[in-house]
């Protein structure tokens, strides 16, 4: 549990309840889910039929590899390979997914066949032939042709996961061969072969050299980063949060030198039935997330925050979405070299099918490019905020960040300055 080790564990009462994730059509019921009726798979039905009739898949992996969390520390690892040979890089490029219709997005991901092989996480240090091939694939940054041989025809399993993008039919891997030499950026090669560099340092270095987050997550999950004796496979869903968190920590540590922004500002963007609204308040860095799920007229709210002087603690209620939302805000503030207190409101509407936390990161990143309004007064900006979100403002009475700004006085109000 890599990301939990970074934090002091919160008390039992703060544990979040299991969030139900389900497809609105079949309700997540295995018996009802059929390839024939699934509206999301309309476009790929033909392709999937073809895939499911053969034990061998040949195609260009975007590149992509998947490590499951089931059975940890003995996990299912393997490459994701679509049965087509083309430029498939879009299949792994979160940044451009916001512009695709949901149905297209699901079809695209589901058309990739997932090879599975039970592997012990420590095996990342001395990989088998198969794992070596997967690791090499993971280091690549352009689509790479892979031949995947399964023990029998792949089967499609229904259901969507909360934290990561959906995957397609899967089967146990017998053999995986890279059909071409992968293109590996020099910096990736250098950092992967540095067995004395800590994983956290490796992540910053890759990030600073402009390596995409997706790529860093892949390297991290395949156990290619860090001190040799600590390298291990990390389930994809945990890796995503670990990488978001580590980059965020690095940006956050440099923020405190910067001056405060001088006005209240609101940023907003929405896509795929998700809306992210960010309120920036002049002040020291602090951050709070309200994650709101609207379902059938009711509303479920998850909420976490970090204030100055708070102990370092895992956001038990919001989970990975917390780090995914924090990163783009830190990126923006670092870019303008300013400090601010941030309140992020993520609203999720009916129609969204759980495809992972990437959409929060990408929507938030877009949001930070669109300033909706700014003001000199907290009350004015809150009134404005009330108009552009569906969350009733009274919910924000719970906000630790807002309460802090309304109540906490500064010494400068009481002392003379010279």
């Amino acid at each position, binding site marked *: 549990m890599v990301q939990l080790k970074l934090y002091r564990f919160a008390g039992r009462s703060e544990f979040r309840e299991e969030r139900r994730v389900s497809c609105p059509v079949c309700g997540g019921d295995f018996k009802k889910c059929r390839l024939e009726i699934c509206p999301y798979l309309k476009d790929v039905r033909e392709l999937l039929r073809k895939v499911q009739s053969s034990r061998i898949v040949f195609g260009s992996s975007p590149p992509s590899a998947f490590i499951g969390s089931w059975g940890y520390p003995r996990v299912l690892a393997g490459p994701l390979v679509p049965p087509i040979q083309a430029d498939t890089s879009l299949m792994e490029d979160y940044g451009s997914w916001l512009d695709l219709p949901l149905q297209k997005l699901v079809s695209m991901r589901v058309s990739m066949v997932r090879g599975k092989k039970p592997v012990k996480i420590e095996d990342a240090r001395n990989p088998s032939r198969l794992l070596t091939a997967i690791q090499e694939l993971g280091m690549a940054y352009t689509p790479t042709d892979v031949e995947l041989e399964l023990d029998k025809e792949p089967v499609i399993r229904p259901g969507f996961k909360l934290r990561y993008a959906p995957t397609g039919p899967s089967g146990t891997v017998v053999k995986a061969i890279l059909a071409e030499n992968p293109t590996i950026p020099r910096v990736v090669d250098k950092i992967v072969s540095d067995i004395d560099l800590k994983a956290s340092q490796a992540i910053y270095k890759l990030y600073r050299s402009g390596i995409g987050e997706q790529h860093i997550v892949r390297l991290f999950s395949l156990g290619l980063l860090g001190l040799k004796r600590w390298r291990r496979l990390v389930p994809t869903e945990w890796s995503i949060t670990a990488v978001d968190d580590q980059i965020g920590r690095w940006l956050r540590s440099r923020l*405190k030198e910067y001056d405060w922004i001088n006005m209240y500002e609101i940023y907003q963007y929405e896509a795929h039935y998700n809306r992210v609204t960010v309120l920036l308040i002049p*002040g*020291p860095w602090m951050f709070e997330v309200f994650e709101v799920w609207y379902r059938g007229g009711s509303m479920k709210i998850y909420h976490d925050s970090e*204030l*100055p*002087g*708070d102990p370092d603690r895992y956001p038990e209620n919001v989970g990975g979405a917390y780090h995914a939302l924090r990163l783009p805000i830190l990126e923006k503030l670092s870019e303008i070299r300013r400090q601010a207190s941030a309140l992020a409101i993520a609203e999720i509407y009916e129609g969204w099918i759980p495809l992972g936390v990437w959409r929060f990161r990408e929507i938030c990143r877009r949001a930070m490019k669109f300033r909706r309004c700014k003001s000199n007064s907290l009350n004015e900006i809150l009134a404005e905020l009330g108009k552009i979100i569906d969350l009733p403002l009274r919910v924000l009475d719970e906000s*630790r960040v807002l309460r*802090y700004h*309304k*109540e*906490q*006085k*500064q*010494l*400068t*109000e*009481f*002392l*003379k*300055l*010279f």
Partner: protein
Amino acid sequence: MSFRMRLPSADYFSDLMKAVQAVVDEGTFKIDQEGMKLIAMDPAHISLVDFELSSSAAEEYVCEGELQMTVSISELMKFLKRAKKGESLTLSYDEGAKKLELTLVDATGSREKIFTLNTLETVEARSVTPRLSFDAKARVGVDAVKDAVRDSGVVSDYVKITINPDAVVFLAKGELGTVQTKLSKMGAAVYEIEADKEVWAHFSINYLDKIVKPASSLSDEVVMQLSTNKPIKLSFPIPSGRLEYLIAPRIEGA
């Protein structure tokens, strides 16, 4: 211009720096014939430390004129952590070279360790004078205050501190419930209360805890000074020096 100071105990200086670090990570010390001083606010302008170590604390003290020295206290702490029990510490600073030299010598004088720390550029900041008047004053055992703050943390982020003629009261309210600590004037934890009426204000537990914890290893008692909805002053009496803090209040329903 340069300055040189020898202190009998490196540990003591280390504890002092920990107490300063509770408020600032980087600080400018003003050094003259009388001693070294630092007054600084944290970046959020919520707490302030007023620190002074007078020349009488030193076995040897040499200072020509007035000088300023800016150091990263967390870097300085890395060196001071290397100090062993019973070692003495000599600080010497050369303003031209921008280097602070720390010499640690053990009790028998058989081993000498020299650390050199690069100091930082001094940025002329607005200075503050921590002069405020207060309506009430209480001298209390530091451990009782530390526990009261910690206990309040169970239910809330902040605590209401009240000083009335008979007692000092810490009250925290949260969703979980309330926590109240009452230190009565009759009890052993309260040495003295000077108050004509009841005064109170709310303060962040994070800041209180961060300050009281390191200061508690330097002093057994704390002088709390308070007025209603005004900053609190916490003074920790230390031999030949001054260690005082101010914390800005939170004002409910403002």
